[in-house]
């Protein structure tokens, strides 16, 4: 093990796969898995969900919009089909949990508690692509705290909370989640976006809006991850537009303990492996500690 313990989870490296961009860990054959710090599985609900009708994605300048709508098999199928595989793997898997009510989140957490193969939970209160739940809970500090507390009570697993950028004051939500018992915060999920078809004048996505990811959002994500890290004592995991070691370093400099890579895996299935390899070559620990020391003494 790397000795890197973040938010109650023993990571193999500081670079994880982000939820919804690595499936259930079985889909991306070209990934250099020994370099993978861990993965967060695709967002799951209690019940199976079909997802939204197509078109589901639109490419935008240095980014993409997606409206998948949390398509998935439901928690029972997840436990049956995937957790036994994960239990054999040598990197930690966190499950990204979703609900339409506080009770649903709590029920999911209880159901996953003690299931072999599950190393932690990532509470998704920031999905822009579902009509009920999703981002609603992440926009309001009190709701965010309520979900976090309910999950906390229902499981002994480490609990990470994934924040939405669509808030007036991220620090407030971050502190609310910390007080409610979160072990770490993940910043950020996608930003809501929209694109119109020039031929028809209608939204290009069948769902209307979608979540913006990719390099386009990186400066926003770095800012919000920095703000979260400044606001809480628990670790922050940076997410948003990371495609290589230099991007990951920006989040580490911003105060994050680890990062997740999403969209970049679509472009290069081995984006995570290459990022970690380059971080190692740069001796990232020394680099991050060196600059932190220089900053605090300067």
């Amino acid at each position, binding site marked *: 093990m790397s000795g890197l313990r973040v938010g109650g989870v023993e990571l193999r490296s500081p670079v994880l796969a982000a939820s919804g961009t690595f499936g259930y860990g079985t889909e991306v054959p070209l990934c250099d898995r020994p370099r993978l710090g861990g993965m967060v599985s695709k967002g799951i609900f209690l019940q199976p969900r079909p997802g939204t009708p197509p078109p589901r994605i639109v*490419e935008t300048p240095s980014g993409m919009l997606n409206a*998948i709508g949390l398509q998935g098999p439901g928690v029972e199928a997840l436990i049956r089909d995937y957790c036994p595989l994960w239990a054999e793997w040598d990197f930690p898997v966190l499950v990204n949990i979703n609900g339409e009510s506080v009770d649903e989140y709590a029920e999911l957490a209880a159901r996953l508690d003690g299931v072999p193969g599950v190393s932690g939970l990532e509470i998704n209160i920031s999905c822009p692509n579902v009509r009920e739940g999703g981002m609603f809970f992440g926009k309001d500090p009190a709701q965010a705290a309520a979900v976090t507390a309910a999950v906390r009570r229902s499981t002994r697993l480490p609990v990470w909370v994934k924040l939405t950028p669509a808030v007036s004051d991220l620090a407030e939500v971050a502190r609310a989640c910390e007080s409610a018992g979160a072990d770490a915060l993940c910043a950020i999920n996608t930003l809501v976006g929209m694109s119109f078809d020039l*031929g028809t004048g209608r939204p290009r996505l069948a769902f209307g809006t979608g979540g913006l990811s990719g390099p386009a959002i990186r400066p926003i994500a770095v800012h919000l991850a920095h703000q979260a890290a400044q606001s809480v004592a628990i670790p922050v995991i940076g997410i948003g537009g990371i495609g290589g070691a230099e991007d990951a370093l920006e989040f580490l400099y911003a105060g994050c303990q680890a990062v997740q890579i999403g*969209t970049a895996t679509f472009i*290069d299935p081995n984006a995570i492996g290459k990022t970690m390899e380059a971080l190692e070559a740069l001796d990232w620990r020394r680099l991050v500690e060196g600059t932190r020391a220089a900053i605090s003494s300067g």
Partner: protein
Amino acid sequence: MFELQAPLIARREVASGMWVLSFSAPEVAATARAGQFVNLLLRPGPLLRRPFSVYRATSGVVEVLLKPVGAGTAGLAALALGESVSLLGPLGSGFQLDQAAGSVALVSGGLGVAPMPLAARAAAALGLQVHWVHGARTAAELCSEWEGRRVHWATDDGSIGYHGSVLAAIPEGIGQVVACGPNRMLAALAARFPRAQVAIETYMGCGTGVCLGCAVPRTSGVYDRACKEGPVYQANDIRWDVLPQHLHYGLGA
């Protein structure tokens, strides 16, 4: 699945504005089956990869067919010989040819001709009688390369072959129909040949099965991934009313 830096080694124009690009990609050429595709990454270029059917795959070379319609295809068409792209593949499921059918019609509209040369060779290898059925708007836009002796052309303006839809040019009494072209054309074909093998188009995020962006609405009620379970389906497995038929962005396209 392989990810290779594949240099462009040749380029030829096979119809007005339609190009075949040949990339050196030995591992992919050796394993690609008819109906499968490769996902190409252009740098500098748009963020995401662009999917292209494998047109031909021989002796270490993967060929794709394209027409510049947007930033990605324009950039690919403008590549200089020797320049490389990242080529990911082979991807997707490929055609299921039925040896018992005796004969097969390879029906294509426009760029939909792309997977047909490989399909023709696979069919011939199985001993099937191959009918090459290809349509375009005009003679100039018809792909000038074909496979086999049984060729049926159709043009919208009648400038060559059958005057009208390529669907009307499909001979009677064919054992199996394999088709590729605009989703609109495939939807019409599905009504007549519900058991045809069709290669469809969707927007794709990854091409490797992780993003769920390429959702294909199945009659069974679920969404499939065009890049993994597809892009080839049996025509009556698809809910054509839910599958987007309009995949263009620019006003001109």
